[in-house]
């Protein structure tokens, strides 16, 4: 059983502070859910735990079973047992899903050793079937041309194959229709064990109908402002977030301002525009 401990975590992106003192502790066997309106830092928290290069931690600690996570590179964190099911996974043309997953599994073994190919194929086929994905998935290029729902299922597929100690699923429900959500929910629920700590990030309570959580946290203004059990979900479901805002005395919950995208007029060359020619 592993434990991930986050203490007083502050992080910024491009000089703007987004996380402002997050405290969280997740152990194997537990399922935590982080809820909250858009732009309150939920996804940032997930990215910071995984070590996305864009974010800088300015204060606080993250440890996994006593090991300093912040000292580790992204790949070391993964090999230590962390997993992040991403909201927008990258597309990698030319690299097949099965090659990628195989390489990822091999990276966890000693130098020179590799997974048994037959076992691997059997395991992958089963996971594909469990998630009701198409049989051709292993041979398709990683996320290339995948629909939103397929990408999300593919994240869960990788989680199944890599059996992490602590898994974070960042808005795994977005882009999923209700049937797909049910399938994903069942699969994640079946993976639950004493060896897996789960952190679900979502802004709909819908996901939690399928994966029950032991603890619910609400994030606003870059920190966790309220923690409790499933009863919080029920109240958010019927009343929204206003009562929490009032409780903690916050007007504007956001820490991330929506980015203004520069628009280019039709008929203009976007390259020239971007280079300011």
């Amino acid at each position, binding site marked *: 059983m592993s434990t991930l401990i986050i203490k007083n975590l502050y992080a910024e992106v491009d000089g703007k502070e987004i996380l402002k003192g997050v405290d969280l502790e997740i152990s194997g066997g537990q399922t935590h859910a982080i809820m909250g309106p858009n732009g309150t830092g939920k996804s940032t928290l997930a990215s910071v735990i995984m070590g996305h290069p864009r974010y800088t931690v300015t204060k606080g600690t993250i440890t996994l079973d006593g090991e300093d996570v912040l000292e580790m590179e*992204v790949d070391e*964190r993964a090999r230590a047992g962390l997993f992040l099911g991403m909201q927008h996974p990258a597309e990698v043309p030319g690299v097949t899903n099965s090659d990628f997953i195989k390489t990822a599994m091999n990276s966890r073994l000693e130098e020179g050793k590799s997974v048994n190919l037959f076992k691997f194929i059997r395991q992958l086929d089963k996971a594909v079937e469990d998630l009701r994905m198409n049989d051709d998935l292993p041979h398709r290029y990683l996320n290339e041309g995948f629909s939103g729902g397929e990408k999300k299922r593919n994240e869960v597929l990788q989680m199944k194959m890599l059996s992490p100690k602590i898994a974070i699923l960042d808005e795994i429900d977005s882009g999923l229709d209700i049937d797909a959500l049910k399938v994903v929910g069942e699969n994640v629920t079946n993976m639950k064990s004493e060896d897996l700590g789960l952190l679900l990030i979502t802004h709909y309570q819908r996901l939690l109908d399928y994966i029950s959580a032991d603890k619910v946290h609400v994030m606003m203004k870059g920190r966790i402002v309220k923690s409790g059990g499933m009863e919080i979900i029920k109240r958010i479901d019927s009343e929204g977030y206003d009562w929490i805002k009032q409780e903690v005395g916050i007007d504007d919950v956001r820490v991330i301002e929506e980015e203004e995208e520069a628009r280019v007029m039709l008929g203009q060359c976007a390259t020239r525009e971007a280079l300011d020619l």
Partner: protein
Amino acid sequence: MKDYVEKPLADTSVPEPIVKLISKDLTNYLVIKDGHIVASDLSASFDAIFVGTYGDALPDKLNVFFDSEFVNEHPDHDEAYHYNLDHVNSGLLIHVPRNVAIAERLHVFYLQSEHELVQNVRIVLEPGSEFKYFEYFYNETAADINIVSNSVVRENAKLSYTGISAFNKDARVDVRRNSFVFRYGRSEYDLAEVNDGNIVAKTNIFLQEKYAAGTSKTVAISSEQQEVSFRQMIEHNAPETEGYIENYGVSNHASHLYFEGVGKINKNMKRSVARQSNRGIVLGKDARLDANPLLLIDEYDVEAGHGAAIGKIDEEQLYYLMSRGLSLRAAERLIISGFLSPVMSMLSTDTLRDDFMHKVEAKTS
């Protein structure tokens, strides 16, 4: 071609690196060292076609190869091309008769060993025939290498042409590949230029009659101080012809990689299609990669387009792969191999794919 002088060969052994490539599962191969066939293994299906050196072909078959209006005189032929015709000392002639389709691929390893290599390869596909060809270039000593390869793809014939150039840094190389494609003919060139030589390579596909189609895909990696240039041209000399050019390049260290892709649609060649894409990864801090797509179009009723995307390895892709436990090096490797997959997937055996990947790794580390 004025004459053909076969130079004597003292050592007919096959060098170790090539021996390694001829794995058990590699069928149908020829090893040609300085113009001499030093090893061969062809299945019975190749009995239906002619495969031979100039020495074998003289004189009865020769007309098939030389009575061709394009391969000896053509506006695109320059000094290097004519030098080749005048000084040829190595080569291969392949003639696939009418309606003969060979499913297996012919693998030819061309080795330079003792002197300057001037090589001329001619492939003639008669109407309705199909042929798959693979070539591997290798040099042992410092040498000037001049390679010309012409293919004539007659009506409804289909040619798949793949190649790897494995020259070392002592080679000065000029490679020309021309393909002349006729009505409903198809010519597909997939070339990997992953070598250390000083190389200038041109691939030209001439679409001579209606409904002819040509594809030219090139992957190239430059490293160290290399300056290399690759030019692809598809010329539409008939209406309703289709040409596709794809380039994939990686430039490392302080090297300079230059792609030029030309889609040329001449006047009255209506309803032709010319498309082109260039993709590049710049790995080295001082490396440079230029893609220069040209569309030379003298007709209104055509479809044509080009695109180019050149940059560093995508950070998000790296992060994604690393977040699954792959080291930075392994992630870069996987992304680059994926990037180069359009040509890698054309290689016949695991040994050849591994050899290709080793070269890629050596040049991208």
